[in-house]
């Protein structure tokens, strides 16, 4: 028996942990939105997973990990036809399984930001396209042998490839679909609080659990110490960011804000994702702290200055912290980071890489969302928004007690 088997097994297990993150995302999004749209959120999360997996199997994986063409896109392995026996040092099936479960995550992030006002079919169309052209293509550049990878850009577990890209698509989507009715009164942001904080909290803890598959699993190598190292940095960053967000929200708003504290944990987890195996414990603690605080500032900035309505804070948590965390690798990488004597070379590459990915993600998602808006329309009608999508679009309420 070889490391090969052991690593394949590890990746399988890590994938299964990651799978539960879909439950986490669902609960976070349900909890942070209004009860009248809970069924719709659930449905969106289910289609996201289902479509994500199916299309990634058919096309996405090929684009991402197929034979590289010009550093831009993969070109074979559609429907896994002619699949090799192994990939990345593990059984091909392990590799694919891990990636397929990841694939939908990027889109799920968007679903939270555009929640409560986006047409179901519009979202489904975006979901399909994103799993074909956004995630796998950028993923190819970063992980699949594309130009960013060759350039030296580094993203361990998807701080940019998954989170920042998802977050930037979310920004575009939320901007284009517009704020929920009543979110801005007299041009001032008002709170539309989530309807079920305990479910949201459960979701965050489930996500955290899954993150231990996401980050440590990304080494694809359980025999390497960096797998366990990544587990610990993930734990530390998530913890300190929780504290940072709690304390900072208390200072800023006078009360320990529950929503921001829960988001704080996620901010720390997203922030460490790009460099979990590359930064040391101190680095993890600093990254977590900064992400926890920056996320709070960003939530307010996006909500009140940019006037973009993001019910779950996805843009700040995934977009900002994903990007920050990726750039921080250039500062905190123990081998090449600026603060560890590695000079500014990696830092520069990280900034360039993040900028390219952000720009591309925003452009493609803008094209998609804008086209949808001008054709079938992005936004549910006024009546549906008032009465709740659940009743009108799905014909059922999430909670029925009479």
């Amino acid at each position, binding site marked *: 028996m070889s490391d090969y088997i052991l690593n394949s097994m590890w990746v399988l297990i890590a994938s299964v942990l990651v799978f539960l993150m879909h439950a986490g995302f669902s609960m976070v999004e349900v909890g942070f939105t209004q009860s009248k749209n809970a069924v719709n959120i659930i449905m969106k999360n289910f289609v996201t997973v289902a479509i994500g997996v199916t299309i990634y199997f058919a096309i996405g994986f090929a684009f991402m990990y197929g034979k590289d063409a010009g550093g831009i896109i993969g070109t074979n392995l559609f429907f896994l036809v002619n699949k090799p026996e192994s990939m990345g040092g593990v059984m091909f099936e392990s590799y694919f399984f891990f990636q397929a479960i990841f694939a939908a995550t990027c889109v799920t992030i968007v679903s939270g930001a555009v929640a409560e006002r986006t047409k179901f079919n519009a979202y489904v169309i975006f979901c399909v396209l994103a799993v074909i052209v956004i995630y796998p293509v950028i993923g190819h550049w970063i992980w699949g042998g594309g130009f960013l990878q060759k350039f030296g850009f580094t993203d361990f577990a998807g701080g940019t490839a998954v989170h920042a890209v998802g977050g930037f698509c979310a920004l575009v989507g939320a901007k284009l679909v517009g704020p929920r009715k009543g979110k801005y009164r007299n041009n001032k942001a008002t*709170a539309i*609080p989530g309807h079920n904080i305990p479910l949201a909290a459960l979701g965050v803890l489930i996500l955290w659990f899954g993150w231990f598959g996401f980050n440590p699993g990304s080494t694809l190598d359980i025999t390497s110490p960096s797998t366990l190292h990544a587990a610990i940095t993930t734990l530390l960053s998530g913890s300190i960011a929780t504290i940072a967000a709690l304390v900072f929200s208390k200072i800023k708003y*006078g*009360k320990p*804000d529950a929503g921001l504290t829960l*988001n704080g944990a996620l901010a720390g987890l997203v922030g460490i994702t790009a460099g979990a195996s590359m930064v040391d414990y101190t680095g993890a603690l600093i990254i977590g702290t900064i992400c926890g605080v920056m996320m709070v500032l960003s*939530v*307010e900035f996006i*909500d*009140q200055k940019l006037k973009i309505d993001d019910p779950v804070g996805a843009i700040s948590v995934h977009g900002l912290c994903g990007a920050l965390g990726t750039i921080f690798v250039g500062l905190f990488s123990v081998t090449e980071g600026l603060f560890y004597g590695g000079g500014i070379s990696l830092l520069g590459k990280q900034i360039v890489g993040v900028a390219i990915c952000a720009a591309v993600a925003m452009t493609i998602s803008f094209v998609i969302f804008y086209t949808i808006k001008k054709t079938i329309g992005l936004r549910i009608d006024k009546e549906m928004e008032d009465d709740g999508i659940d009743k009108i679009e799905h014909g059922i309420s999430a909670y029925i007690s009479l």
Partner: protein
Amino acid sequence: MSKMTKIDIITRPEKFEALKQALNEIGVTGMTVYQVLGCGIQKGKTEFYRGAPLEINLLPKIKLETVVCEVPVSEVIRVAKEVLYTGEIGDGKIFVYDVENVIKIRTGEEGVRAL
């Protein structure tokens, strides 16, 4: 048919148990309870939720509604005041309404006998 009166008592949820017991003691047995949100002098405050202002100006209250006839209205009010009084804002209010008729479905009795 003697006069029947509906008394609505709006107060803090945590006082409910005590109020119910006190009313039982003076002979009020039938009552209906609503979970409501209220504001009066006791205002909510502006809170922050993820940094955005959130006016919580409705506080959860209960409304206990009881229709009485034989038990004098004044007696109900006296007891309610006794049990609910704390002197703090939020003690609540009592509203008194006239009732035209009452029917007890199980027996078909009407008016006082239905209570």
